């Protein structure tokens, strides 16, 4: 309002100065709340737990944190249970990301063709990805149940007495199966967008040059989808290293600690048993460093894609 009056009054110089000040105020006003919240809820806690990781502290007791230097890190690196948790996480990440990539890419190749109801079918297949992992995990307990579950019946074990008891004998594989069920659609979604972006004329040209379908796949399809496929793999790897919800819902880390991923181990360390808060903070930092390493690759890659 004031600006338009000023325009009518014919004072262009003053308006310009005022608008610039306004702009800076707007910038500050618009960005500050976000940054303040992120700093209070993310940056400050990270420094706080960095401090805690060098102390002996239990949040259930009254004693204040006691500085013990690198004691927690020494203890962690010598603890075979922690190494076991990292091994479980690594195996889980490798198995599930590999299967998701293959299945997701396969589904995308299947659904790329233009046929009736293809959009509807794609959306239906995408549903598992959107659901709450903990609730999905918990419900799969019933599905895997040797007596009442349908999984064994579906894969052909009709006799409950001889059928495998998934959550007891193959717990990690069970988690991988549910993870693959949930997240293959994610890989499929990314691959589909890559496939749809390949112009038809490339295939037409290849057809005219008599390139075999096999050759077309290796020389046209795969190179075009590769960036998105890699993005999906990176993203799923990060998520697999963070695995918590699904594992808690499905096995709770058990039986014993067969499916205890790093996140579950961390949770058990703080909120179950002795509440070793200082030690857990140290472990959190170790996990953080691993995740940051992988995430940086991911974010760097995202930025590169945005520029392209």
């Amino acid at each position: 309002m004031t600006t338009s009056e000023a325009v009518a009054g014919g004072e262009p110089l003053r308006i310009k100065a005022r608008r610039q000040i306004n702009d800076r105020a707007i910038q500050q006003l618009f960005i500050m709340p976000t940054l303040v919240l992120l700093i209070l809820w993310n940056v400050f806690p990270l420094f706080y737990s960095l401090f805690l990781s060098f102390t002996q502290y239990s949040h259930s007791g009254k004693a204040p944190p006691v500085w013990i230097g690198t004691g927690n890190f020494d203890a962690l690196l010598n603890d075979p249970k922690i190494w076991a948790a990292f091994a479980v996480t690594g195996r889980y990440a490798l198995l599930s990301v590999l299967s998701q990539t293959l299945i997701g890419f396969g589904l995308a190749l299947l659904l790329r063709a233009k046929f009736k109801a293809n959009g509807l079918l794609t959306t239906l297949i995408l549903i598992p990805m959107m659901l709450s992992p903990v609730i999905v995990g918990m419900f799969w307990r019933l599905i895997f149940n040797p007596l009442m579950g349908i999984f064994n019946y579906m894969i052909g074990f009709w006799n409950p007495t001889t059928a495998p008891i998934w959550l007891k004998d193959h717990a990690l594989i069970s988690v991988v199966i549910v993870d693959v069920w949930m997240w293959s659609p994610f890989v499929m979604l990314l691959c589909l967008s890559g496939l749809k972006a390949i112009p038809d004329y490339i295939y037409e040209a290849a057809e005219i040059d008599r390139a075999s379908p096999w050759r077309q796949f290796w020389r046209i399809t795969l190179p075009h989808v590769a960036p998105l496929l890699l993005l999906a793999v990176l993203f799923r790897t990060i998520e697999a290293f963070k695995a918590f919800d699904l594992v808690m819902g499905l096995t709770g880390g058990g039986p014993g600690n067969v499916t205890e991923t790093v996140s579950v181990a961390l949770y058990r360390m703080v909120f179950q048993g002795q509440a070793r808060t200082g030690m857990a903070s140290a472990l959190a930092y170790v996990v953080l460093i691993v995740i940051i390493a992988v995430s940086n690759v991911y974010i760097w890659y995202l930025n590169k894609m945005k520029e392209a």
Partner: protein
Amino acid sequence: MASTRVEHAFSRVGPGFAVVESVRVDQITPRARLGITARLILSIIIAFVMLIPVLWMAMTAFKARPDATASPPKVIFVPSLDGFIGLFTNRTQLSAAALAEQQQRTDLNFWERQTLARGMRILGPSKFVSQLSNSLIIAISSTILAVTLGLLSAYAFSRYDIPGKRDWLFFILSTRMLPAVVVTIPIFLMYRAVGLYDTHVGMILLYTVFNLSFSVWLLKGFIDEIPIEYEEAALVDGYSRLQAFRKIVLPQCVTGIAATAVFCLIFAWNEYAFALMLTSEKARTAPPAIPANLGIGGIEWHVIAAGSMLFLIPVVIVTFALRQYLLRGVTFGAIRQ
């Protein structure tokens, strides 16, 4: 006839062979049509198999307890509302005399009659009712906050030349990559110290922060797509920055805002790790609460299924509404369809 000739031409392909006859590549041959039908059928089968767990959950929700835990599992059953009654109410078994007395009453509503038919009386709503409403309150409030703040920042990042812009955006995105379990320990101690542990406000603020990075990135993508010339024209016409923002930018990115809001809503609705560790009674949401029902009185699978189904249905509906934006959402706006 035509198709066999095409096949013949394809049978001797490669650099060593002369091109005997040309092939039309724009025509759908019967063989290609067969391929498409095969793909369609295969896709239908796969979609069905993928949805079996979800369908099974919906079926179990409507089973009576013995049907839900039958072995072998029952595909055909008499529908029952047992699961939902178990989910929403605390009940007590009535004695024969009290039962007869209750049956005389005519002022009972549908649910009370249903419970009475099972020889029980409703004592009151179960904990799940308040947990579900907690989920709703926390998810909706945090979504409004995250989208509002995210929209403002996204606009500033999209339209101004802010020093160190890339670094700030990188920082904002990196906060999203932190595993929940890692940041929970200090946040838990912080909340306990300032009295935010197990409160709605604490959870709303936490989910707002959790969603902010996402909403900034996604909305920035949507705002980037609005030609800056519109605003420049408005500014020349005498609009102030805020007016231009309100009257030009906002209407242009309504769909973007809606898509972002729905994604934030789903994240907050599904979130488990923070809720498990930072709430206990008052502000507990549904995701950590549904598995906790497992222990009570044996495993009541029909009750769990009923709760899970109610919890998942909104997400399934929303997935359909969002299908155009799914890709954008799951890649933080990096890829646009």
